[in-house]
């Protein structure tokens, strides 16, 4: 789960990380209020969206007085911000963050995440802060300092000091910087993050260490033990259909194409999208109804994919395992009675009790187009979507 910068910083503060004073605001009035509370100028007005690249996209402004705070707040709130990470549709700015300004001398990058090939956490740092780490990795991989964290020992203070030394911090600040890394590791472990990032970590002209931007992704699987984090979820940062799908316990991701797919299993759902593409079409979504979908869930899945106005055809691709094909057929029939589909539906069904399932669909009187293989189904769906 992603959270906003101001929420990440709130978590960081709890762990004693050096975060500048700042407050979120949802309206222009609130923005002015919290700027007054900060009591000094200039302040930074930062758009809060679940993506990076805000600075370059005009989402971060320096305000030298209250008038400017008001002006920038009015400008940003309600705006859709398009950055290189958001895609062309952008993300809506429903809140901003007002923070005291920092006198930057030098910027650094630090992050902790899982190295999947090692099955261990790693801490990565670079003296080229402010830049995207992928960019640094591509242009100058030697500039990235990495330490592997042993699961039994945790991040050791000596490792944290070594990174600070290699980054070239002044000697009198080594312990201070190391303590930032250790606290960051604490956040990762105790809050069950899947990624924590400070970009940039700043050495100020006054010689202080400051966390200027903060990013945390939380492990969805561990949210059950963090009810306070769960409350930080912001549905405005996801598409309406994705939020709805989540409520129905469905795994749905909206895409740009016009052929909706409904599949059981994540791998098969991805393979179905790929097959549609190979057949010359574009998938409208990823949708995994799961292994234990019942008639009601199939109906909900139907509602979701049918409310995407781009959809011109539906491809249902089910490999019945433990979930039997006759149950699925029952679900499809019930769902189509409830939510009248207005586009052609191709059904490919295989596996347990497939004969019975096919018979039920054939006798249902529904206008379903059967297919024997995934490839045949995908081709038919593409033809139908193209109006052939």
């Amino acid at each position: 789960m992603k959270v906003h910068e101001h929420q990440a910083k709130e978590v960081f503060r709890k762990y004693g990380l050096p975060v500048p004073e700042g407050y979120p605001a949802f309206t222009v009035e609130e923005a002015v209020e919290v700027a007054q509370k900060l009591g000094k100028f200039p302040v930074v007005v930062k758009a809060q969206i679940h993506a990076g690249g805000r600075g370059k996209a005009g989402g971060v402004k320096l305000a030298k007085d209250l008038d400017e705070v008001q002006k920038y707040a009015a400008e940003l709130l309600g705006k859709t911000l398009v950055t290189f990470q958001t895609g062309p549709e952008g993300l809506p700015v429903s809140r901003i963050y007002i923070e005291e300004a920092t006198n930057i001398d030098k910027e650094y990058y630090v992050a902790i995440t899982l190295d999947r090939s090692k099955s261990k956490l790693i801490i990565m740092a670079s003296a080229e802060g402010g830049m995207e780490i992928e960019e640094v990795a591509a242009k100058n991989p030697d500039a990235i300092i990495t330490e592997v964290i042993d699961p039994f020992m945790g991040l050791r203070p000596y490792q944290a000091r070594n990174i600070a030394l290699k980054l070239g911090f002044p000697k009198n600040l080594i312990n201070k910087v190391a303590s930032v890394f250790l606290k960051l590791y604490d956040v990762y472990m105790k809050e069950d993050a899947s990624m924590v990032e400070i970009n940039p970590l700043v050495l100020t002209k006054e010689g202080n260490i400051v966390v200027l931007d903060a990013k945390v992704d939380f492990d969805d699987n561990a949210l059950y033990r963090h009810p306070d984090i769960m409350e930080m979820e912001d549905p405005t940062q996801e598409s309406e259909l994705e939020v709805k799908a989540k409520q129905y316990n469905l795994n749905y991701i909206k895409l740009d194409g016009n052929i909706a797919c409904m599949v059981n299993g994540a791998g098969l759902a991805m393979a179905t999208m790929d097959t549609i593409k190979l057949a010359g079409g574009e998938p409208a979504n990823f949708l995994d109804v799961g292994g234990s979908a019942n008639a009601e869930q199939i109906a909900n899945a139907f509602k979701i994919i049918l409310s995407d106005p781009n959809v011109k055809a539906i491809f249902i691709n089910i490999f019945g395992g433990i979930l039997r094909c006759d149950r699925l057929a029952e679900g499809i029939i019930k769902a189509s009675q409830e939510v009248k589909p207005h586009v052609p539906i191709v059904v490919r069904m295989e596996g347990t009790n497939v004969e019975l399932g096919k018979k039920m669909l054939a006798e249902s009187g529904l206008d379903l187009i059967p297919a024997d293989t995934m490839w045949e189904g995908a081709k038919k769906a593409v033809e139908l979507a193209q109006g052939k």
Partner: protein
Amino acid sequence: MSVLVNKDTKVIVQGITGREGSFHATQCKAYGTQVVGGVTPGKGGQDVEGIPVFDSVQEAVDNTGADCSLIFVPPPFAADAVVEAVDAGIKTVICITEGIPVNDMIPVKQYIKTYYPDTVLIGPNCPGVITPEEAKIGIMPGHIFKKGNVGIVSRSGTLTYEAAFQLSNRGIGQSTVIGIGGDPVPGTVFADVLKWFQDDPETEAIVMIGEIGGTAEEEAAEFIKEYVNKPVIAYIAGVTAPPGKRMGHAGAIIAGGKGTAEEKYKALEAAGATTVKNISFIGEAVEKALRGE
């Protein structure tokens, strides 16, 4: 021949009194698997369809001689269930549970590697393992598999079924089929299973089904180059998946531009594997490979 499990494997089911656990324990037993016991703390002495239930894995092992455990314990307790199994001397642990926190699995994986280097953990978040017509230890529909000489290893459950079904329909059986699961910290990776299949004299060809995210397929490609001379037929799901979105499985995500299907296909092709871009033709590709084409 087969790898990992066969008709002599004695299985206990952890979480046997739960809905999933009792259903699948019964299904596995009906397939012919030796399901010798189950574990649910506090329910020792009961039975599930004639399968005796014990309070701890150690008690179950002492009473039944089990060497394999199939885990259905809910996510908050599943990592502990894995540790309990390996500490009790279980040699093959198959964890079906989906949704275990990643931070719980990292130390468990290191624990097994450090203290029980010969113990195998399959999963979590996987369909399990089947040696057709001998032992089904998982949640897969047994009837689509057929005994034979092709090994299948996959990160995805339903894609495993799709591949096995296509093979069986063409009369091509499978030696052993292993679902390694869709989590970011899997107990077993492609390279491990490729080694077992390469070393198994009766496995003649290997089907490998990967997906986007991580670098396990690239590491498998390295291993194939070094060690595997049997034909490998590979498919990768997620060519059309957008970056930054978790495609169902926790591990199926293109992050920081890494883990794309294109990169994985490229690595596998460079290693000499036959790649199949359209999953519907995987059966045909295996048939050709077996004919030496």
